[in-house]
């Protein structure tokens, strides 16, 4: 019985923000059409890595490495 009470209490705590939000939205009857977009987060930056896990030489992308192979100096698959 005690365990059941604890579970119910925890569920109530988790659900409360949702309940409050829903109530707030239901109460919002204004005609304000202004949209508040969320602030943009930091732009993700992609750093391609070569076979050694670095950004690579000569712009070789992930899975590629710069070396002197059959085609001479070029990007080759790892």
């Amino acid at each position, binding site marked *: 019985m005690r365990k059941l009470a604890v579970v119910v209490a925890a569920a109530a705590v988790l659900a409360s923000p949702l309940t409050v939000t829903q109530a707030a939205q239901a109460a919002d009857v204004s005609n304000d059409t202004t949209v508040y977009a969320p602030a943009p987060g930091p732009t993700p930056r992609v750093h391609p890595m070569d076979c050694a896990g670095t950004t690579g030489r000569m712009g070789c992308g992930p899975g590629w490495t710069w070396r*002197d192979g*059959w*085609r*001479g100096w*070029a990007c080759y698959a790892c």
Partner: protein
Amino acid sequence: MRIPLMPVGIPAATTACALAFGIGSAAADPADYNALLVNPNDVTDSTAYTASAPVQNPNNQQGISAVYTHRDGTRQITETVLVLPDPAAATTAMNSSQNEMASRIANEKTQPVQVGTGATLLTGSSPDGTKSVSVLLFTQGNAATTVEFDGPPADAAPTEFVVDLGQKQDAAIKNALWS
């Protein structure tokens, strides 16, 4: 440049007949065959390979052969173009070369590739395992071509590179054959 339709050594009467009708050339000028070779630098960074002096009529067969060595000394490309009397003879020569390769390539794998006519790519290693070996064989008209790529055991010539060079080789032969 035009590959002689009939290589040197054919009966004189046939040659005379061909000349009378303006077919082929009077004699095979060995220098002409240089145009049948394609320097691998055409498909690389343009400085990777150094060409040896071409060998005219290798093994007493009409045609030309040349070896291109990579600057790192671990890779070598050998091009051989034989000029035969007709396409059937070229196919026979190609099949003969393929049979000869069986004793030179260990763990041989065979795959068809899109180069010239009846192209086959053989890949494997040297019998002692010290190098990778890839051999491209194909015909174009009365020419039979073999391009061998020898390299480090763990760095066989990429198929796309082999095909790329082979297609340029094929284009050079076609150009010489039909232009």
